[in-house]
């Protein structure tokens, strides 16, 4: 039976179809769209918050999306150990919702960045890197104005000692502290990343480095997530 993965659609999301297609084509997942007004996530094995401009990014990216009804269900799902991945705007939503630490500020230099970046996989303990060896370098596109990861020194120290920095940029494009491109929660089942793996999963278009991350997510969705302790 293939993993059932829900991709949340907020008003203003714009990467949801790419993610659904990528998960199906790369991982054979049974991916489906979930409207942000949903209050339950019945039968899902994983949830993705895709990129875009949820609720127009008004006030701050993710500030309004975190109050969408679906987010309470996402928080419950995450607390039960279910894999939850936020890509780009989805990462911003997860930080605003308090499911991941830190915040995403405007890029240093105030430029909207749309380019391919090289990122280094830092740990295998997250649901998007479970099947990828640490140290692996991947070329994956970014497409954001607010991807400058910020947190206080205490949080950064915790992220390091708890092995929760998932991806780092090779050449920091946006000013993120410690070159951070992605982080996870304590258990590794909630991950946020700025790069778009769904845009690097088709050899025909010359970019397939996102496949390992998507395959990791599908594999994680297909098994019970083990928790520390």
């Amino acid at each position, binding site marked *: 039976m293939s993993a059932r993965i829900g991709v949340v659609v907020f008003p203003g999301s714009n990467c949801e179809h790419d993610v659904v297609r990528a998960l199906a084509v790369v991982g054979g997942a049974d991916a489906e769209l979930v409207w942000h007004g949903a209050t339950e996530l019945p039968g899902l094995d994983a949830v993705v918050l895709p990129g875009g401009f949820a609720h127009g990014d008004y*006030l*701050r990216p993710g500030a309004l999306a975190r*109050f969408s009804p679906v987010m309470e269900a996402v928080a419950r799902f995450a607390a039960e150990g279910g894999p939850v991945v936020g890509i780009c705007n989805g990462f911003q939503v997860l930080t*605003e919702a308090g499911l991941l630490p830190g*915040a995403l*500020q405007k*890029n*240093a230099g105030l430029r909207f960045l749309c380019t391919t970046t090289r990122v280094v996989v830092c740990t295998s303990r997250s649901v998007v890197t479970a099947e990828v060896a640490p140290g692996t370098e991947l070329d994956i596109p970014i497409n954001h104005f607010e991807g*400058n990861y910020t947190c206080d020194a205490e949080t950064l120290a915790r992220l390091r000692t708890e092995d929760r920095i998932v991806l780092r940029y090779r050449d920091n494009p946006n*000013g993120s502290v410690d070159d951070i491109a992605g982080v996870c929660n304590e258990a590794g089942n909630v991950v946020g990343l700025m790069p778009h793996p769904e845009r690097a999963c088709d050899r025909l278009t010359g970019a397939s480095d996102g496949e390992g991350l998507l395959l990791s997510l599908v594999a994680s969705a297909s098994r019970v997530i083990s928790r520390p302790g």
Partner: protein
Amino acid sequence: MVEVRLRPGIADPQGATIERALPALGFFGVQGVRVGKAIRFSVEAADAAQATAQAQKMADRLLANPVIEDAEIRVLDAATP
């Protein structure tokens, strides 16, 4: 009015850009530029203290992101009973 500001120590890319631009326009000696938001609204409340308390709750839940921002609340025109 709720003034939302980046907390001390949090990098401010907008402020830095403005600070770099000012000398080109002939404004020298400007330092420490910080960009925030001013959110103005009216609220029904018995007095200024109650209005401030309501605005504080709004700031805590939505208007500011406590990870990187502080909010300062000012009652500009206390409503008459």
